[in-house]
């Protein structure tokens, strides 16, 4: 077991390093000139060569690439992630301020997706091809197609239109003002949660349908256990394993989806910061956030793999 965890962590570290190199390559080495990214094409052509060189020097962009990479890696390890082009606040401080809101949204959305998705999957699987099943399948297909940020815009618009309500635009910490905090995070969490619930209902349904046909389920029924107990004790736990794995994969959907969704709700989280960085062409902030999102995604999936290994001895022993 411990060797399994150690192996996963070692591979994970390798992946995170690889990811950091890839982010660096994309943001610095791809054909786009960083000054073009900052000033835009028009602004760039107006700069004189001397100005260009001076800017490059100020930004530390005239050092050899490997030195730039190591300097960046150092700021990551120190935890302050360097500075934005346009703000005094370091990226580390921004993370501390905005990170919790996005983290809350992510966690809440996962909880919501299970609360909605699993019961739908159970109803669908136990009564296949009935009206309830068809309705559930139609809804999940629909929610797979609707872009979350658009649902977010509709919710904001509807609340404003009919109730004159708008969630507070400033961030409030969970501990200082729980209610304001809840108002800020609930909208994005519901939208992202429903998006995931569609996948979970779909996967849960097919997993349950498969498990129900297994011999041990028939044995449990044959020895006289009642149907509900068999589903709850024997079928469901086994059907949930693939759903847990799926939840890990879906974290990518949540992390990435939170960017447009936070824009739609004007939520003061990390996703909105990413949107701001993109519109300001702030490649340093962007580079750090992209790396951070990918690293979190990798680590979460390792956590999921380890959870699965704890729950399922077949995987542990392989």
């Amino acid at each position, binding site marked *: 077991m411990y060797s399994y965890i150690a192996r996963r962590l070692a591979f994970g570290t*390798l*992946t*995170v390093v*690889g*990811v950091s190199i*890839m*982010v660096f390559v*994309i*943001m610095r080495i*791809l*054909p*786009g000139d960083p000054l*073009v*990214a900052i000033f835009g*094409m028009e602004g760039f052509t107006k700069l004189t060569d001397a100005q260009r060189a001076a800017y490059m020097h100020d930004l530390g962009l005239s050092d050899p690439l490997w030195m730039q990479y190591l300097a960046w890696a150092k700021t990551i390890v120190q935890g302050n992630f360097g500075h934005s082009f346009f703000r005094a606040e370091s990226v580390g401080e921004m993370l501390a301020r905005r990170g919790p809101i996005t983290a809350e949204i992510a966690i809440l959305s996962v909880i919501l997706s299970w609360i909605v998705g699993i019961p739908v999957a159970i109803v669908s699987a136990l009564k296949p091809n009935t009206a309830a099943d068809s309705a559930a399948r139609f809804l999940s*297909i*629909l929610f*797979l*197609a*609707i*872009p979350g*940020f*658009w649902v977010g*815009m*509709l919710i904001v*618009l509807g609340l*404003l*239109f009919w109730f004159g309500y708008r969630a507070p635009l400033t961030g409030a910490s969970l501990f200082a003002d729980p209610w304001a905090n809840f108002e800020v995070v609930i909208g994005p969490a519901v939208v992202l949660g429903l998006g995931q619930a569609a*996948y979970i209902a*779909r*996967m849960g349904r*097919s997993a349950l349908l498969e498990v129900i046909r297994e011999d041990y389920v028939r044995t449990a029924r044959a020895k006289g256990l009642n149907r509900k107990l068999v589903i709850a004790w024997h079928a469901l736990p086994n059907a949930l394993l693939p759903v847990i794995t799926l939840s890990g994969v879906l*974290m*990518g*959907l949540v*992390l*990435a*989806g939170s*960017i*447009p969704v936070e*824009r*739609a709700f004007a939520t003061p989280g990390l996703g909105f910061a*990413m*949107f701001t960085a*993109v*519109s300001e*062409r702030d*490649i340093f902030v*962007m580079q750090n956030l*992209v790396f951070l*999102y*990918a690293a979190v*995604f*990798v680590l979460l999936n390792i956590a999921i793999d380890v959870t699965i290994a704890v729950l399922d001895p077949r995987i542990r022993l392989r």
Partner: protein
Amino acid sequence: MTATITGPIAPPSRLSTAWRGIASLFRRAPLSAFWGVIAAVIIAMAIAAPAVAPYPPIKADFRAMQKPPSEKHWFGTDQVGRDTLSRVIYGSRASLTVAFGAVLFGTTVGALWGLACGYFGGRFDMVSQRLIEFLQSFPDLILAMAIAMALGGGITTVIVAIAITRIPFGGRVIRAVVLSLKEMQYVEAARGIGAGHARMMFRHILPQCVAPYLILATTHLGVAIVIEASLGFLGVGIPPPEPTWGNMLSDALNAGLVPPWWLVLFPGVAITLTVLAFNLLGDGIRDLLDPRLRGSV
């Protein structure tokens, strides 16, 4: 005077085979076929946009600014009086060009890479798998955003950015298919009679990968459309004034504290309908080409 038919029966032409395929899709999966028709209508609309759209998409009309839907402007107008219906119709061009371009490019590159990985194996495969793993460590949209931002706006950039996020899927799936094909007897026979690597890969193995490739490509069209719209919404897609559904929604948010409902509603409905159509058509094609996968996720 009865003429008798002699000689062999003519083999079915390619056209009639295709026709029979479509007919069987209608019979076996009427729902998918229905959405296939919707998809065809959307594609036709994109191609015939100049003929279908009632107004030019970038023509401002300062006498009709931000007007709600009316007889003259069915979907209303935006802040500078551009007709929303026309912009939605023209927006389908950007959406579909990017989706088809990115999926074709990304899946093909991924498939060829996967073919090479599966066929050659060894160290090349090991390094490739690590690279693919790195690529897959990024949530799709975030990788696309970073690439689109680094390369600077424009339709080619958006296609390349989305295509790169599709490469790992093609790579993984086709590699798995090739690994199982490599063990087949006919491949061994081909090797036995001395076929070279290129002939083995492209003449004997590649044709077997066509069905999984098609399934993969069609299932990724919907995802590509959503990513394109998200990029447009975040301001790293195709830049205005060219209308895309994503940048229309972005403009709507910039229209004021309370965005007019018609500017929010219609582009979103267009995205949803298109994605729904391509997803369900994809499901139908998958069922048709590979009945074993029916009903799975």
